[in-house]
């Protein structure tokens, strides 16, 4: 492997070519089936003889399982099997795991439970109702152990151990330093510091995770599931099940939302597969909401920060020093990547060069962590923006001004940040200017004063930015370790285009890609652009793992970029074949032919042409009309590798390029805060995003709006709460507050387009940015509204009680 290579930039030269389909507001091709209620979700599948599983979940945060009496459940007519951790120990290997091997996990707890909600036993029965009767009839004896719930206390030497084999509750630890942070802060005119806590939330899609496994023919186990990365990880699931990978066929099923929660969600399909193997019958396991809230595949980041930032006298940032303890919960699972994400844009859109990032992953008696829209980078962005905000205040600079002074300039790209990742392109001043052109901040600053004086109302303005890294490379999952077990460098995506004998297009995608994003709209738009056929006329399907070409799946805002590359690659190959067939038939040189609106025609003489159906007929039925040596048929596949990734250096002084396709956003919010009730509402909100070339502005706007709504939830409402004893306090949607239409304002959206020099068409990812900036904006606006009471948001979500207490304390202190 070569250490470093910069790809040749495909120049878009700042001017975008005119596209026929790309860039216009087209209706989504996914929608008609969803609108008639035929989304094809996993719970909608029916099968002969299908059994249903229900799970007994641990009521205790930390305990040894002394005994499980299954006889009562087994005696219930209709109960087929009861399985426990003993069955896993005897017949499975631990689940896939990206952390140290001393922290292993099975889909059913083995020997002890480590959080409230962990699976203790599974009842398989002829109906879900009977399975749940079975759960009621199980008798379990636990020997309670001390619960470890505070991540700092977890790291103390006398803390109870979650995993004896691991020897401590420190999952892993690493400090990266780039430049000289000590000097940068020592030399600074001003150093601001903060203690911050980003609370635990989760993607919380309306559809839970689920899987159906069925023993099929030839000893092949078929698994239908709504997890997202199955083609990337299928061999690891097979390994856990102790079956050969070619005897496990995973078939993607559309997901009703994910936002990270179904990213590598392997425990549900692994469990369903295990149940089918043990019973020899098809088994469905679909989480109910309680399962999903307390256990799901994972919750998201729960981080405690001590952070410092230095500034020169004129507001230039000199360095950032971050010390983070991440409350990972009971297992590591996929945790490393969430901090890799943070490092991919550790310095934000700003130019400073000195950075220290110290991470300690604490193991506690809570649900494990994983991905949620932003994948951990959104947390870091909040910390970064909190410090920038504080610096601006102390230096007497407006929030837009301090950012403008520190922005990387458009001519500096590609720009290598401390740590080694590269930002491909961008125009941050333009995004800021666009946002400022959509809302009159000076007007609002006057209104804030006037409304306070005349009406006693508290208005606050928040301005914040974010980088939106997109298109991850898998190196980020292992550069944390000096001797990684599997230093993977591939993260490809594939597409197969078939023109059938009648000239109709079939497009096969090779990963689970449909979860509410628009994989079919995007891929058929690209195909339409290449062939000049209507996007709606293309039929899209998804390969199962027995046929799937390399694919990594959606995540880290990579799918639009990657599938566009794959479809364009396959299109080029297939167009060449069409042109070669036509050249042979028309007896002209292939160089004199072009494909226009679904016909191959002679350049300058369009009346001499052949339509795709004619060419397809030749390809399938008239071999003697084909050029000598050409294979019959019209199908081409293409695997598009990551456009720009490099290896980390051995000493990790350079982490390599791993997330280079860099979007950017600026949000401005005007909020009103009621100091008596803590109620927060919005008076205006603008969101401007740069995701490179936009494929479908309306769809991208929808993702920005949806992501921002989730960011709002993270900021103000949502919390997966544990009490100090480790009990779980967010067991329903009445406790875990997903924002309703009443809480979400009508965001006003703007787009700026700075095409990527490294991707096909210049597309960048754009699925996550909304959630990556909202928390910073809300925090700044709430602070601004209640500045006279010394409001300073240090914890998310900002609870009404915190607001009321802050105000009350300030009033008390004055008296």
């Amino acid at each position, binding site marked *: 492997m070569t250490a470093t290579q910069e790809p040749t930039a495909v120049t878009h030269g700042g001017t975008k070519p005119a596209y026929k389909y790309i860039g216009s507001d087209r209706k989504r091709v996914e929608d008609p089936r969803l609108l008639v209620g035929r989304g094809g979700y996993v719970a909608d599948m029916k099968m002969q003889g299908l059994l249903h599983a229900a799970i007994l979940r641990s009521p205790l945060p930390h305990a040894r399982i002394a005994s499980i009496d299954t006889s009562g459940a087994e005696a219930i007519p209709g109960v087929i099997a009861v399985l426990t951790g003993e069955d896993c120990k005897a017949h499975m290997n631990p689940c896939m795991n990206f952390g140290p091997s001393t922290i292993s996990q099975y889909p059913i707890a083995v020997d002890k439970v480590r959080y409230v909600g962990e699976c203790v036993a599974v009842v398989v029965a002829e109906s879900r109702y009977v399975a749940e009767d079975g759960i009621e009839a199980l008798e379990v004896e636990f020997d309670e152990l001390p619960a470890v719930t505070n991540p700092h206390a977890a790291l103390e030497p006398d803390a109870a151990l979650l995993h004896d084999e691991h020897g401590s509750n420190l999952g892993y630890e690493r400090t990266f330093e780039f430049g000289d942070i000590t000097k940068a802060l020592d030399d600074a005119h001003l150093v601001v510091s903060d203690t911050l806590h980003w609370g635990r939330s989760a993607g919380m899609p309306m559809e839970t995770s689920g899987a159906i496994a069925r023993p099929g023919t030839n000893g092949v186990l078929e698994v239908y599931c709504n997890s997202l990365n199955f083609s990337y990880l299928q061999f690891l699931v097979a390994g856990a099940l102790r079956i050969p990978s070619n005897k496990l066929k995973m078939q993607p099923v559309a997901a009703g939302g994910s936002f990270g929660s179904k990213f590598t969600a392997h425990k549900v399909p692994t469990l369903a597969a295990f149940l089918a193997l043990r019973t020899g019958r098809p088994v469905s396991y679909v989480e109910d909401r309680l399962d999903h809230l307390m256990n799901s595949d994972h919750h998201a980041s729960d981080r405690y920060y001590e952070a410092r930032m230095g500034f020169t006298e004129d507001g230039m940032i000199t360095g950032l020093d971050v010390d983070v303890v991440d409350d990972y919960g009971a297992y590591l699972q996929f945790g490393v990547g969430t901090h890799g994400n943070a490092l991919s844009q550790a310095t934000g859109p700003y130019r400073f060069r000195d950075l220290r990032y110290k991470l300690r992953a604490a193991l506690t008696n809570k649900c494990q962590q994983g991905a949620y829209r932003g994948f951990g980078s959104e947390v870091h962005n909040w910390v970064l923006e909190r410090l920038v905000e504080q610096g601006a205040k102390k230096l007497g600079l407006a929030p837009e001004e301090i950012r403008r002074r520190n922005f990387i300039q458009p001519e500096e790209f590609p720009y290598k940040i401390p740590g080694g990742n590269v930002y491909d392109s961008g125009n941050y001043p333009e995004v800021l200017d666009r946002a400022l052109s959509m809302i009159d901040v000076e007007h609002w600053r006057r209104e804030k004063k006037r409304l306070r004086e005349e009406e006693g109302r508290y208005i606050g303005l928040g301005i914040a930015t974010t980088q939106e890294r997109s298109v991850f490379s898998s190196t980020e999952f292992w550069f944390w370790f000096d001797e990684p077990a599997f230093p993977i460098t591939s993260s490809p995506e594939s597409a197969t285009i078939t023109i059938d004998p009648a000239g109709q297009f079939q497009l096969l995608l090779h990963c689970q890609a449909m979860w509410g994003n628009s994989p079919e709209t995007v891929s058929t738009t690209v195909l339409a652009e290449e062939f000049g056929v209507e996007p709606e006329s293309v039929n899209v399907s998804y390969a199962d793992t027995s046929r799937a070409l390399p694919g990594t799946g959606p995540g880290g805002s990579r799918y639009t970029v990657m599938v566009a590359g794959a479809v364009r690659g396959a299109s080029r190959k297939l167009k060449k074949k069409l042109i070669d067939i036509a050249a042979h038939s028309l007896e002209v040189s292939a160089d004199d032919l072009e494909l226009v609106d679904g016909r191959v025609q002679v350049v300058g003489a369009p009346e001499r042409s052949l339509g795709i159906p004619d060419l397809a007929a030749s390809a399938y039925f008239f071999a003697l009309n084909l050029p000598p040596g050409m294979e019959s048929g019209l199908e081409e596949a293409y695997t598009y590798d990551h456009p720009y990734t490099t290896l980390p250096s051995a000493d990790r002084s350079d982490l390599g390029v791993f997330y280079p396709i860099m979007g950017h956003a600026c949000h401005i919010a005007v909020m009103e805060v009621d100091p008596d009730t803590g109620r927060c509402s919005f008076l205006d909100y603008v969101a401007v995003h740069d995701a490179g070339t936009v494929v479908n502005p309306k769809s991208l706007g929808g993702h920005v709006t949806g992501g921002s709504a989730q960011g709002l939830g993270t900021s103000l409402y949502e919390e997966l709460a544990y009490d100090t004893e480790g009990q779980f306090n967010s067991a329903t949607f009445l406790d875990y507050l*997903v924002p309703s*239409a009443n809480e979400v304002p009508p965001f006003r959206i703007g787009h700026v387009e700075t095409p990527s020099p490294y991707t096909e068409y210049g597309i960048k990812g754009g699925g996550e940015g909304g959630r990556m900036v909202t928390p910073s904006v809300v925090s700044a606006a709430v602070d601004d509204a209640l500045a006279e009471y010394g409001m300073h948001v240090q914890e998310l979500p900002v609870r009404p009680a915190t607001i009321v207490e802050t105000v009350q304390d300030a009033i008390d202190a004055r008296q």
Partner: protein
Amino acid sequence: MTTAENPATATDTRTITLLVNGREVTRAVSTRTTLSDFLREDLDLVSVHLGCEHGVCGCCTVLFDGESVRACLMLAVQARGHEVETVESLSADQNDLHPIQQSFAEEQGLQCGFCTPAMVLRAKEILADGRERSDAEVRSDISGILCRCTGYQNIVNAVQNAGRKLSRGANGGAGTHDGVGTSAVDGAETEQATDIDRAPGFDGPAGTEQRG
């Protein structure tokens, strides 16, 4: 799950007759079967989605004698003699969508589609009076159904668009109006919003209520 056999607790079975999407159906059901499971499992009406089964998310919304209810909170036997409508009653043919479904497609009022049948049915219910609705009213009307994907704005647009379509239909094709909500935040100058997708008014209930 099939509800016919339920030997475990030998729960009672009743035979019920009800009107579902305009057709009379008679089935034997276990008394503990929820209406949502009955519709999904026994009648194959899988548009009734289960997001929580706690009565909070609203994804299981169906029209019960014309009014929206959460099917997960009712037992199938309670529907005996009543009329139930699911989104299949508008159109089950994706090539021939009902005007409300068309409006959702035009405005992209959906992403994953999981809340969508519930939103479409709720739109049908609230638009039945033919009255034009502001952003704030629509937001309030749909606030009992959670959508995790869209951030609601495109759903609000879809409901308003559907209202216009339906009233055009009712008026024999004459359009009644074509503007979007233009009211704005107190003191805000709406004309600032020029080069954006659209500039809906910030007359959302969160603000309105407080400014009252």
